[in-house]
Structure formats: structure tokens, C-alpha cells
């Protein structure tokens, strides 16, 4: 075991949150900051261009963590035996510098104001008695209005393209009139709309909804952000989700944060370093222990630790390091691992009579309606739906393999052979999807702990997810499917196929989105949360835990909110904690 020279701050994980914390701390203080990333070094644009290959990147998932080394186990309920997720299904966690922030699709929506006070909001609006059983949603410990300036910082840093629908309380048609008030118009205008989302926009307007362009963290034009980083506009090549951007138009940690960090003398990045334990004594974090690229075990002492890996690994490292009280759903005690959420969604495929050129596009290019997000119509609430979702039609760029073979329901008997092939060729490039991104409530029975059976490549226990849908999610999906079908019809669909994203049970095998939240949730009381509203550990003041693991529940696409909350944490760390190290009051 080798002991290294002490650093002021060690950051575990080199993705969006780790590098944002590093950038804020190194640019505002002279502290030495070391980022440990377990994946490989940063990839440049030429390497991303050589990665414009659907098979290796979208199907074999070349940018993801090697699941052979480490995975999670899953069970539907506490009485079941968990089995390992042996191949990627419902989520695709990235690895290497930039993490999943390199391969995301760059949808950059804000959460609604009620989300931050959700427990209070639902109780006041509906009364506790009406709400779903075992509901565990909590307030965040701060409000939308308090977070708004940080949303704006994150949007400027990334250069989000979109159209405001609520500017300081004034509603503007063409933007999302259902969103919370924005202090500023978007930094960049929306992307040009392609044919399919334009049909969606017209259909939505005809049905009386308020369509708006999806906010996208891929630039619609060349843009220099307030940090001085210049990036070009999107080329609409369609290689977005599951790929790194080959021109740098998509906001990625490698193109927005790393260019600044590499100029800082107080910044060090070490790749190929897998952190296995956070070391602590007497209620204070003192360093981390990791295995380096050559397999050597190394101890890195530090004055403060920022845990900034993905949700799964944040929770797992705290459990393995025995920091905090593991959650016990039966006794209703403990906080670490509780409030596991993913994301609810419902998809309708529709078939049109004209070619769509689906290979062009950008991950966040599309139109959406917010009429069913947040509080649903009263009729839905009376049938037991208490929060809904955003319905959208993306032109994200479809690859030829994954888009091939879709035909309207009931048209052919088989999914192979001449008859199927002919139908699939006929409908190819005429198929589109209407999807929804819905609130996922937290429940007492959905949580994370260590698996008693399965281990990673070093022999450490895997994280175990106990997660299933409840009737509330099934009802949400039903409500949104109806709207999606009416939109498909209004778009002139010649055929449709409903995709059961929310089946009767949670599926670890079907792709949903890499949006797993909770486990290290924030809140205003140490009895109910692991970190305080500034993401500082309640019982270990020099340990800060950032990322989606801090969400008490998940409204929808989380990245922009994760970054806004990280800015808030960075401010608290630099402006308050460093001046008076200790628990923030």
C-alpha cells in the first residue's frame, strides 16, 4: 500500500458534478484539488468522430462502464431474491472523463416549482388520506426561486437552446407556459424543427395544448459562455445519445469544464483509479483508498472529500465505507439508501405516410407539451393520478439498426421472413415516437442496500436495488398513453404501436434512461435525509455528496437540475464552509 502526499480536496468521479465542483473550487480558491476517475482519459473530437458507429456505441455500448466488472442486483420487493443485471438494460452509465455527461442526449429541462416542496404541495392540495400508500416524497430544503439563479448559471455554462414560456411571470406562447418563471430568455434560440416534430407541434396546437421546443444543451449556433469557452453550433449528424459529440456542439464536461481546468495549476486529474473506500475517523473524512491502473492499492489523504460518482456508486461507497445509517424499510429507520427513484415514461410509435429522414437530428431536438406535467387535470386526480409528465416528440437521430423492423401493430404475423421484411422496408423511416418523461414518486419500499450474494471484480458486495412500480405509475402511464394516442391520430398516423415502458413491473432489461436517483437524499432534517440542503453530510462536515443521489424524488430528466444544485453546493463549500469548516447551519 502506498501513501501519497496530502491534497486539500479529493473529488471522487470525473463527470459533470465532479468536474463542476473542481472548476468552481480551483477557480475561486488556491486549494489543491485532485479528481479521481476510474475510467479512461478524455476523448477528443477526432476520437468521437471515429465513434460514429451505431453497432459499437449504441448497441455494444462502448462508452459505458464494463458491466463485467461491476453491476447492480435487482428485485421487485423485499421478499424476493435479487439477481444481477448481467447486461445493460434500463440504464447506461458512462465511464471515463466526463462520465455519462459525454454520451447524454442533452435534454436540459428545469423542474417545476412544486417539485422542491412536493410533500407539502401534495398534502395541501389533496390531503394525506387520498395520496398513494407508502408515499415517501419529501421537500428538498429549498425552493425553486432560491435555485433559479443556479439554473440560469447552468444554462449559460452549457448554452442551452430554447424558448422561454414564463419570463419573470409573463407567459409567452411558443415557450413552455407551464414552467416556473425564468429570470432570462434562453442563451440560444431553439433548433430548427424537422418535419416530424413540426407535425407534433401542429397537432398539439390543434388539440388546444401549448407546444414548445425542448430545451437542448446542444448549441443551435456558435456560442461563447461566460467562462469564455467557445463552441460551434450543432451539425445535426444524429450521433448524440450514446455518443460523444464530434464537433463539440453538445455540452459535455470535456468541452465546457475541462478546457478551464487544464489551465489551473491547483488541479490534478488521475484516471484509471477505482475508489473502493472513503477513509474516516472520529466523524471526519481523512482520505480515500483506491486501486490504480496498475492494480496497486493507494491511500490518498485529503482535508475534504467530494463524492461525485454516479448515484449507484455514491450510495455503494458510503455503505461500503460504513458512513451513515443504512435504511431499513421494515423498521422505517436509517436514511442511507432510501428514496430510490428512476423515471416513468410511456411511448407510442406512430407510422406516417411520408419519409421523415430520421437519421438527421440532435438528441434534444424536438417539441413537447407541458399540459400534463406537474398537477394533472382534476379528472385525472380523481382517478388517482397526482403528478404527470411532459409529452414530447424528438428527432434525436436514429441509427439504421435500431430503427429497423418496426411495423404497425397487427400488420404482420411474424417478426422475421419475407412478409415481415417487406412490411419493415415499407415502413422504414416513416416511424416516429411520442414519449413521455414523468414524475417518479419515492415510496418506502423502493431503496438500495448491499447485496448479500453478488460481488464486483474486487470481491466487494454489489449494490442491490429493490424497486417496482405501484398502481400510481401504471395510472400515470395510462393517462399519458391516451394523450399520446390522440396526438398520434391528430398527426395523421396510419398505424400505431403502444410500447409498454411501464409494464406491470419495473424491468431492468428495457432501456428507460440513465436517470437513477436517491439514496443520499437531501432535506432539512438529519432524521429524514443524509445530506443537508447544501449537500454536506449531516454527520461528517468535510464530506460533500453531489449528483442525482441527492434527489428526494425525480420529476423527469435530471441533468440540468443536478448541475444547478451542484453550483449551489459549490457556493456553500467555497463561500461558507472554507471560511468556517464545520457543519453549515
Amino acid at each position, binding site marked *: 500500500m502506498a501513501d501519497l502526499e496530502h491534497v486539500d480536496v479529493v473529488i471522487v468521479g470525473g463527470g459533470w458534478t465532479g468536474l463542476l465542483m473542481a472548476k468552481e473550487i480551483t477557480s475561486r480558491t488556491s486549494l489543491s484539488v485532485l479528481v479521481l476517475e476510474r475510467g479512461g482519459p478524455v476523448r477528443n473530437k477526432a476520437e468521437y468522430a471515429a465513434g460514429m458507429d451505431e453497432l459499437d456505441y449504441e448497441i455494444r455500448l462502448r462508452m459505458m462502464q464494463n458491466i463485467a466488472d461491476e453491476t447492480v442486483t435487482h428485485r421487485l420487493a423485499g421478499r424476493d431474491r435479487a439477481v444481477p443485471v448481467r447486461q445493460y438494460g434500463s440504464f447506461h452509465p458512462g465511464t471515463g472523463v466526463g462520465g455519462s455527461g459525454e454520451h447524454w442526449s442533452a435534454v436540459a429541462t428545469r423542474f417545476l416549482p412544486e417539485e422542491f416542496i412536493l410533500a407539502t404541495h401534495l398534502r395541501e392540495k389533496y390531503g394525506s388520506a387520498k395520496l398513494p400508500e407508502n408515499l415517501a416524497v419529501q421537500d428538498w430544503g429549498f425552493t425553486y426561486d432560491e435555485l433559479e439563479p443556479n439554473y440560469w448559471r447552468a444554462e449559460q455554462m452549457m448554452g442551452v437552446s430554447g424558448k422561454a414560456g414564463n419570463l419573470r411571470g409573463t407567459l409567452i406562447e411558443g415557450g413552455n407556459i407551464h414552467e416556473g418563471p425564468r429570470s432570462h430568455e434562453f442563451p440560444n434560440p431553439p433548433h430548427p424543427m424537422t418535419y416530424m416534430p413540426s407535425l407534433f407541434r401542429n397537432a398539439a396546437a390543434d388539440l388546444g395544448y401549448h407546444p414548445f421546443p425542448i430545451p437542448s444543451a446542444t448549441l443551435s449556433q456558435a456560442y461563447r459562455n461566460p467562462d469564455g469557452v467557445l463552441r460551434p453550433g450543432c451539425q445535426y449528424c*444524429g450521433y448524440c445519445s450514446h455518443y460523444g459529440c464530434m464537433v463539440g456542439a453538445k455540452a459535455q464536461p470535456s468541452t465546457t469544464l475541462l478546457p478551464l481546468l487544464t489551465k489551473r495549476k491547483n488541479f490534478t486529474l488521475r484516471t484509471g483509479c477505482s475508489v473502493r473506500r472513503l477513509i474516516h475517523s472520529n466523524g471526519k473524512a481523512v482520505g480515500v483508498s483506491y486501486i490504480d491502473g496498475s492494480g496497486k492499492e493507494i491511500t490518498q489523504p485529503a482535508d475534504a472529500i467530494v463524492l461525485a460518482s454516479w448515484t449507484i456508486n455514491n450510495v455503494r461507497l458510503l455503505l461500503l465505507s460504513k458512513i451513515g445509517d443504512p435504511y431499513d424499510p421494515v423498521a422505517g429507520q436509517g436514511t442511507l439508501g432510501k428514496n430510490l427513484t428512476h423515471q416513468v415514461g410511456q411511448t407510442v410509435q406512430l407510422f406516417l405516410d411520408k419519409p421523415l429522414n430520421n437519421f*438527421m437530428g440532435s438528441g434534444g431536438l424536438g417539441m413537447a407539451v407541458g399540459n400534463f406535467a406537474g398537477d394533472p387535470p382534476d379528472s385525472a386526480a380523481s382517478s388517482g393520478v397526482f403528478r404527470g409528465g411532459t409529452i414530447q416528440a424528438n428527432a434525436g437521430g436514429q441509427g439504421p439498426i435500431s430503427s429497423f423492423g418496426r411495423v404497425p401493430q397487427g400488420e404482420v404475423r411474424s417478426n422475421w421472413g419475407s412478409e415481415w421484411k417487406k412490411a419493415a422496408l415499407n415502413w422504414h423511416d416513416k416511424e416516429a415516437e411520442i414519449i413521455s418523461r414523468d414524475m417518479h414518486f419515492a415510496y418506502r419500499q423502493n431503496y438500495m442496500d448491499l447485496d448479500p450474494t453478488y460481488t464486483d471484480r474486487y470481491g466487494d458486495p454489489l449494490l442491490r436495488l429493490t424497486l417496482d412500480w405501484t398502481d400510481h405509475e401504471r395510472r400515470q402511464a395510462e393517462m399519458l398513453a391516451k394523450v399520446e394516442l390522440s396526438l398520434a391520430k391528430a398527426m395523421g398516423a396510419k398505424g400505431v404501436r403502444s410500447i409498454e415502458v411501464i409494464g406491470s413491473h419495473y424491468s431492468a432489461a428495457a432501456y428507460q434512461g440513465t436517470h437513477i436517483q436517491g439514496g443520499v437524499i437531501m432535506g432539512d432534517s438529519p432524521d429524514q435525509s443524509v445530506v443537508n440542503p447544501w449537500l454536506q453530510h449531516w454527520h461528517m462536515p468535510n464530506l460533500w455528496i453531489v449528483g442525482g443521489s441527492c434527489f428526494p424524488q425525480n420529476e423527469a430528466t435530471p441533468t440540468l437540475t443536478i448541475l444547478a444544485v451542484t453550483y449551489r453546493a459549490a457556493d456553500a463549500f467555497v463561500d461558507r464552509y472554507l471560511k468556517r469548516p464545520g457543519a453549515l447551519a
Partner: protein
Amino acid sequence: MKRREFITLSTTSFGGLLVYTLAREPIRLNAQEAKIQVPLRFFTAKEAQVIAAACDRIFPSDDSGPGAKDAGVIVYIDRQLAGPYGRDRYRYTKGPFVESSPEHGYQGKANPQEIYHDGIQQLGPDFADLDAAKQDERLRSIETTMFFRMLRVHTIEGIFSDPMHGGNANLIGWQLIGYPGPLMSYRDAIGKFNGQPWRRKPMGLEQVLGRPVKGWEEEAG
């Protein structure tokens, strides 16, 4: 060392002598009959003939256009199975292995190489010599197996993946569906061509970049 095995493919069917116009109309050029021999990395010649025949029933060469045989799908599958994917280098393979519900995906111990060897037994060593109706009958009888699901997915991958992976010979798959390849920019076309097809002669990634690119299957692992 293993004896080198080859599969013999006819150039009139293997690849690009069938071409497509930009309006997606097929033209069959008068080709000279020739044979090429492709060295195999995983299958024996006999096994390759069985799999190639099965792929061509899944995605047949017929009056709606070229099929698995024309795209050289067998070469694609052979290379995938010989590489790290075929040996499950990217799947969690620690035990215990237990049966579970479909929500947990494939939980078996067998890797793709083993699944194919087993599948070839199920299809029968005489599979390539059967008539099409008999072949379809046998395939239907194994439709619900992991092997068949894999074979179907791999067939589609072999037709529509970048030619650097061994299939999609002469971009026949992309010609068939009007896919232009991984082009670097549609900035001038985006938001235009509403309901109109935007078609170009397809290009593979190496052509687009003007330099060689290696598939993941070429990496040792």
C-alpha cells in the same frame, strides 16, 4: 493451431453487384460469376453454411430486395463471435446463476459462442441443404429460444451495421433503406425536406473520415 476454415461466397450474390438508385430502385448489373473465399475466425465452414442459410430465411433475398446472403451477414456474425463479445467480456458472468423473470434479461451461463454452437445442433447439420419451407419450419420450432432471438438480432445488425464490421457488403443494407451513412453535417438540410426523402449515395465511416477505423471486435480482450 486450428485449421483455417473458409466460407465460399458467390460474388453475384455477395455484395454490391446489386445496386440501388437514389430513388431506391434496384438495378442488377450483369455480373461475372465468381467465387470468393472469406477466412472464418470462429465457425467451421459447415457451421457457417448452417448459420448463413438460417440468416437468409430471417432476412431473405427476395422480390423486396437483397437479403442476409447479399450483405455477407455470416462474415459479420463470425467476427462478432470470435471477438470479446462472443466470449462475454462485456457481461456480468459471476455466479450463482439463477432463473428469473423476463424483467431481468438473459440470466444464463452460456456465452454467445456457446449459444451458437448449441443453436447449430438445434437447427441440424443438414439445415443448409433443406428446402426453404423445411428451413422455416425448423426455425419456427425454435423461435422462443435465446439462440433464435440472438440470431435474428445479429442478422439485422449484419445487414445494417457499418461495413467495417464485416457485413453490409458494399453498403447494400444502407442502399436498401436509403440510409446515407455517418455523415458529418446536415446543417444545410435540417428543417427542410419536409416529407421528402433526403438521399445520397451511402458512405461508410472510413470513407467519411478518409482513414481506417477498427471495430471493437478487433480488440483483444
